[in-house]
């Protein structure tokens, strides 16, 4: 337990270091994006005077380090600043609402695709080279090969246009909350499921096969243990390891990187917010979104590592059994 704690602290330290470096990289990247923010804001009818006045008013003329310092000191205390457009409207009030929507979408997708892909992955692994395996593998490969904007359009065509079960666009009517419109989550979540299913089920299948062929499973089977017991008690725990890594690695994407899916469905989440921010060069908003996504990625990687070592004693006790 002490080792686990030590590892946790070490990971936390490197996480913080990563975030500091990343925050500067994000700031720099946004800085060198082509196009001028003030020009962008004012549009074509902007005169040079107007652009200059706006640059001055928004503090865009200050030196880079000064602006970075101002930004990061706000971020540390939870103030992400104002959107460059809506003065007086803090990014916090824009961002968290969208993050809430994204979390609901990610959670929905997660509880659909994780059990589904693990179950079918295990099934395919256990039934290796049998028709069940072939069907699952074929389906997995097919959905993996389809990018989400293609599978998304197929889903829209079938479930929204033809069957009319779900709305074509995931828009929350004005004055209502997402809870009154949970049906808008379904199609985007299914679209994510299709992308993730092939990936995870194939990973689960191959690790299941290798575990099932290992000596200790053969020994367990030979001593007459029931097959169900062998699969779920002995094989699954070990076969889950690579799958958990894959799931963990995709958590960041799931919570913050769904730009394509959200844009396609018009879902009011963080991905589409990021898209809007980039399109309109809303620098503080881009920085806030990207930083948040970085945090999610780092934290989910950390959790994955910790879970991994919990499940796999060989990693937990790397220094040898004491």
């Amino acid at each position: 337990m002490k080792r686990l704690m030590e590892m946790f602290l070490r990971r936390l330290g490197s996480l913080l270091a990563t975030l500091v470096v990343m925050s500067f990289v994000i700031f720099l990247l946004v800085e060198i994006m082509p196009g001028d923010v003030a020009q962008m804001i004012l549009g074509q009818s902007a005169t040079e005077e107007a652009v200059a006045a706006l640059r001055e008013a928004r503090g865009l003329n200050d030196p880079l380090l000064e602006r970075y310092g101002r930004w990061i000191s706000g971020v540390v205390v939870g103030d992400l600043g104002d959107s460059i457009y809506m003065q007086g409207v803090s990014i916090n009030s824009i961002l968290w609402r969208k993050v809430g929507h994204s979390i609901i979408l990610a959670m929905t997708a997660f509880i659909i695709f994780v059990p589904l892909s693990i179950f079918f992955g295990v099934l395919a692994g256990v039934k290796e080279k049998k028709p069940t395996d072939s069907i699952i593998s074929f389906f997995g490969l097919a959905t993996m090969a389809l990018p989400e904007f293609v599978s998304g359009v197929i889903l829209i065509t079938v479930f929204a246009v033809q069957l009319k079960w779900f709305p074509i666009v995931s828009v929350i009517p004005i004055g209502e909350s997402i809870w009154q419109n949970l049906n808008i989550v379904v199609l985007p979540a299914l679209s994510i499921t299709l992308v993730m299913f092939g990936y995870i089920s194939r990973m689960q299948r191959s690790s299941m096969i290798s575990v099932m062929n290992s000596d200790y499973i053969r020994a367990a089977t030979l001593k007459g243990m029931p097959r169900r017991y062998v699969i779920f008690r002995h094989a699954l725990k070990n076969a889950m390891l690579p799958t958990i890594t894959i799931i963990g690695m995709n958590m960041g994407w799931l919570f913050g990187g769904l730009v394509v899916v959200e844009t396609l469905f018009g879902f009011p989440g963080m991905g589409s917010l990021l898209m809007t921010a980039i399109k309109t060069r809303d620098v503080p908003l881009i920085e806030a979104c990207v930083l948040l996504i970085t945090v999610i990625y780092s934290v989910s990687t950390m959790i994955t590592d910790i879970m991994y070592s919990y499940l796999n004693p060989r990693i937990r006790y790397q220094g040898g059994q004491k």
Partner: protein
Amino acid sequence: MQRKLSIMIGLLVLVVVLVVVLLMVFQKDETTQEAAVIGEPVEKEAPVKQIRVAEQVPGLITPGVWDGQVFSMNSSIYEYLIEINAETGELDPVLATSWETNEGKVWTFKLRQGVKFHDGSDFTAEDVKYTIERTQDPSLGHLKKTDFEVVESVRVVDDYTVQVTLKEARPTFVYLFTDYNMAILSSEYDYASLGESKPMGTGPFMMSQLVPKESALLKKNPNYWAEGLPKIDQIAIYFVGDIDASISMLESDRVDVVPFITPEIQQRVDGIDGISVISPYQEQRFISMRVDEAPFNDNRVRLAFKYAMDPKVIARSTAKMELNDGVFYNETPIMNMLAEYKELPLRERNIAKAKQLLAEAGYPNGLSTELYYASDHPFGKELSQTVKELAAEAGFDIELKGYTRDVYLSQYWLNVPISITGWGGRIDPSMLLSLAFKGGGPWNESHLDEPVLNDLIEKISSEADPDQRMAYYHELQEWFYNNGPLINVQVPYLVAIKDNVVGYRQPLTMLPQYKYMDIL
């Protein structure tokens, strides 16, 4: 078999339990989500009459620095001294009831009485004075600063009379008040800190709820001065960054109006029952050649380029429309629909002549040049591609350089050999002339500095006699036809709209007039 079944049921139960738990967890978040909403919460009663609009995500919306997005929102909240009648093109009185001038130097405006701002304060002459003087505020970067530099003083005669004295005669000065950035603001309201989050004016609709980057709900102004207007109870505006998503919303009956669509989108909605595409007015695309550098410093090269064009082909391949039926073409800065327009013969395509002119100018084997355009602007790609191909036959080897609009405007525009730029129409074209075609003008994309032309532009803006002014306009257009570096392609501004929305009005000022619209 039974085992498998029980595993399946187990999984299913697990999923259901998880969903329920998650729902309960997030239900608590409702209060924090509500806090993100600016303004009063929406009442749950079913709206009686509502028009739903999908618009671009707004940039700055405070009049003065408003970048011209979300026209449906701002034009409904704010009002102007005068507006353009979308049907007749005449000036209609709004907050000013009448105006007069002595030869264009001193302007007196009589103001409408009994008008109230949305915050309850009275509209008076002080507000007009404030709005005009605000254009010169250096910290603001007002987009109409240059236009209003001609104002010498603004005097409040009484509560409902304002007198504006100009430094020099401007017979068409009154048209400046139709510009979308000249909405009349309250002198008592703090636009610097509230203008972006709580827009407030005298308009027919009031901001009821604004969710940043997502939506806005406007409700009928109960104290609106015009009897019987507005006809609908509310306007729901969704900010949608993606035009395809906007059209999906229209197709699935989530919105009723989608403005500013492209010709490709028009083809997509053509043939859908209950949806039409209308074109309330034309916009201009200026194909400008830079005259202070080779090769276009030689008028023969400019003429060769113009001889290589084919207006009919441009109309068809750019907008899938016929010439003079949706798309218009001339070689001057004056739109075909304006009274000032002089009909000059349409230049017939003549490749032999174009080649001959190029040879005379010293380019017997043709020449290479670059054309810059905004690739994400409607008609940008189509027009530049067509121009490239037409010009190629005469010996122009054009390399196309397309950039997103902000990059194009901030990095290339005004400094390139050929550019294609979108220009809104001006009901008084003299405003545009001094900005874009006079030596030293801030948007002089072709770098013109011709004494004849400068003189003509000066005369047009100060001439009080309308007939004489018209004569100058005609002279100017002839100059452009024979020497000009400009091709003016006028393309339709397209709006996709449900058939049950009636009375859509949007004049050349680009400001839609939702107060006249109704939904059946």
